[in-house]
Each structure stands twice: as C-alpha cells, then as structure tokens.
C-alpha cells in the first residue's frame, strides 16, 4: 500500500488566527482513515486545507506531488473529492443538476472507478424519484445522500468527508455506512471526520486524534480504545 495523501507539518490560518499547528498525517491507497477529536480542534480545517479552501503552509502531498498553494479546483481535478460539513447542496438546482455538477475534468492518472448517474440512482433510489425537484427542498438525509453522490460523480480516488452523519436519522446513518463500505470495496481512499465513534470505529483501518490543531494520537481503532487516558483527555464527550 502506498501513500496517497500526506500532511507534513501543516499550519493553517483563518484570517489571522492560527488553527492548525504542524499537522502530520498520512492516508494510504485504499484506506479509510478517521480523524477524530472534539469540536473546534481543527479537524474540518485540516480537510479544507487539503482541499485548498483555507490558506496553509507546510506541505500537503497527493500522490507525492505537493498540492499546497493550488486552487481548490486544481486539487479536485487531480482526483480528490470533498464532502463538506452541513451538506452544501446547490439549493436552486435540481437533484440531477447537482449531480451533473459533480462531474469534472481529470488531470493526471485515470480514476479507479467510473460512476454514472444511474449508479447513483441505484445506490439511493430516493434520489431518482426526486431527480427533478430542487435540492433545497430535500430532507436533511436526502441532501446528505446527494452531496455524497455528487462527489462520487467526479470519479475521485480519494474523498474527504466531513461529519456525514450529523443530525441524521439512524436509518440514514446506516446508509452512509454502506456508502463508506462501498467506497472501500472500490479501493477509494477516505479521510473521514466523524463525531459518531461507532461508525468511525467500524469502517476505518486507522485513526488519528486531533487536539489543539495538531495530531495527538495515531493508531488502529483498537489501540485507541485501549488508551483510556488519551480518550479521556481528547475525545471524551
């Protein structure tokens, strides 16, 4: 397994306020990695930094090429997908238009898996039923599905997912879990920020714990659960 996405001493800023303090982190090919931590420790910022959505120094590499300083669309075209927190659907567009916007030009290596509209509709038949309704009127769960699928439409090799189960009914949470497993089966790497440990532990091979803008733990889920002091200091809610 080779290294796909790597953070090396990454610092990030919101305006002038320092949020990430030297993050080191690696995601390998075909791996699901969870980034854990309490609210406000900088997990979302780490994803945004990788996506080029916040200014960062240090280096972030994708396929061993530096992507720090690139614009978000250039990073996306190299094969990274991003699912933001809070389901950023385009409310004025229809479901299908949202999905179409997920398609993108690819640059460099061909993608691992190709996805079509039909694949998405098979995944979540609900979306097919509502393909011509505008995304703004979907329920929270449907919107979450839509963002997940929209990202897949870009045929990414790696997806950064931020809190996909936030505020969702248990039934939908299960769907999200299935989605993640499907990704793993196709060999797509995932960097997951998740609050619900139950899911995170179930799907990920490795976990990182973030505190105060830097990584305070790295290991497997089992190792994490074994480390009671660490959990107490950085995770417990």
């Amino acid at each position, binding site marked *: 397994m080779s290294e796909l996405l790597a953070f090396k001493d990454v610092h990030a800023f919101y305006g002038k306020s320092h949020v990430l303090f030297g993050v080191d982190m690696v995601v390998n090919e075909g791996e699901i990695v969870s980034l854990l931590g309490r*609210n406000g420790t900088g997990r979302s910022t780490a994803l945004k930094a990788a996506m080029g959505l916040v200014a960062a120094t240090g280096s972030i590499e994708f396929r061993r090429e530096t992507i720090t300083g690139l614009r978000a669309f250039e990073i996306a075209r190299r094969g990274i997908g991003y699912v933001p927190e809070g389901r950023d659907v385009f409310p004025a567009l229809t479901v299908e238009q949202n999905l179409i916007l997920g398609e993108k030009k690819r640059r460099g290596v061909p993608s691992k898996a190709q996805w079509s509209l039909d694949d998405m509709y098979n995944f979540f038949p609900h979306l097919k039923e509502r393909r011509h309704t505008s995304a*703004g009127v979907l*329920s929270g769960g449907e919107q979450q599905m839509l963002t997940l699928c929209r990202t897949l439409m870009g045929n990414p090799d790696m997806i950064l997912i931020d809190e996909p189960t936030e505020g969702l009914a248990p039934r939908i949470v299960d769907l999200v879990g299935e989605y993640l497993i499907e990704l793993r089966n196709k060999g797509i790497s995932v960097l997951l920020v998740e609050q619900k*440990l*139950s899911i995170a532990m179930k799907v990920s091979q490795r976990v990182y714990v973030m505190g105060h803008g830097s990584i305070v733990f790295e290991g497997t889920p089992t190792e994490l659960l074994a480390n009671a002091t660490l959990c107490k200091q950085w995770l417990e809610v």
Partner: protein
Amino acid sequence: MSECALDLRDVRKRFGSAEIIRGANLQVEKGERCAIIGPNGAGKSTLFNLITGRFPASSGEILLNGSSIMGLKPFEIYRRGLSRGFQITNIFHRLSVYENLRCSVLWSLGYRYSFWQKLSSLPDVKERADEVLDLIGLRDRQNTPAGLLTYAEQRALEIGIAIAGDAAVILLDEPTAGMSRSETDAAIEMIRRITQGKTLLVVEHDMSVVFALAEKIAVLVFGEIIASGSPNDIRNNPRVREAYLGEYSAVDRTE
C-alpha cells in the same frame, strides 16, 4: 417555587419546509445552571438564536423573568438581562482585547450612546473591564487586536464579552469547544465562578462538562426536548440513552 428565569413554551421554528425546532419546552429557574445536550444538528444553536432574538420563532412563547420576549430584537433582549456567547467566535476583530471588553460593559453600566464622556475617564468601565480581563486570563494580551489572538484566546474573549455586561441570564454555546481536558477543567472552573448566582444556559457536547456544571440537563433531539431534569434523571432516562448517549457508548465511561 422560585420564578422561572427562562420559560420556553412549545417553541417552533421552520426554515422553508424544514422544521428545525419542533415544539421545545423548557423551564430554567432563577440561579439555576442548565445544560442543553443533543447530537450535532439537533438544533441547539438554532434554539439559542430563537431565545436571543437572532431569528424570530415561528410559533410558541418565550418568557424571560415572566414576560414575553417574542419578537424583540437582540439588543432589547440583552437590555432585559440576557446575554449570550457564540459557538463560532464572534468578536470585534479590529479592536483590541481591552476595547472589546470595554464595549461589552458600556451598556450595562448605563453609558448608552454617550458621546460627551471620555471613555478612559469612566472608572467603573475600567474597573469592570479589568476584572473581566483577569477572569478570562488575557491580561498580557490586552492591547492585541482581537483578530490576531489564537483560537483558544478568542474563545476566552468570546466568553468574556458574553459575561462582561453582568447579565442575570447567560447563554453560552459550546464554551469549551476545541479545548483539551485540562483547559476544559479550567474553563469550567471559570464559568462556575463567573456565573455564581446567575442563571446559566449552556450548550455543550462534553458530558463531563455537563455533569460537572449543570444542575439541570435538557436533551434536544431532532428539534424536540425529549427530556429534562437532574443529571441523574437524564442518565437513567432510557429514551435519552437510546437516542443520544447510545451513540457514544463506545467511550461512555463517565459513569
């Protein structure tokens, strides 16, 4: 029975077709510390926004010290003795830390829109601002523009602004977000100290904070308060365990 400081009666909020708050009922007694818990996205911040007048509620009734504050603007609600802090840091970023605090104490000390008095020659303003400055531990950063503070410092300032006006009812939205355990403990200590004798309503994720701080806990799930009561009641409430705490059972060792 003491009077309710804050009384929510069947408060509802609709955004478009989605109902975010679906009939919240909550009573907070005077001098009580109450925590609202609930999964992310349950509508906790929205509820705060309804109480403080940031958004108008779609229906229901909100009473502050027995009188309705429905439809009032945030500053009117503040003037009736309710102050709040924000989850996302919301400070005056080009003013220095000290100025942030000075601004925050002005109204409560009765200076209103005065343009005939010199700010620096108001001893009570200085006294209160200094007091808060020490409380939040930013004394050595007092002349730094707030926008240049680190995240943790901004969080502290955020709380400082909320409490500076010495309001009787204080709402804090995730005051310990982003802090480590030890910092969190210090923060709890601080909050406990500065809210002595006041009514506190706090949104919090951290169960240890909740259990350490609150005398009463309300659980908000999908826009509904499914239970409220003493920490013990909540811990033993099966509905709460299923709907909320269950999700965290893997690390739920606080008991």
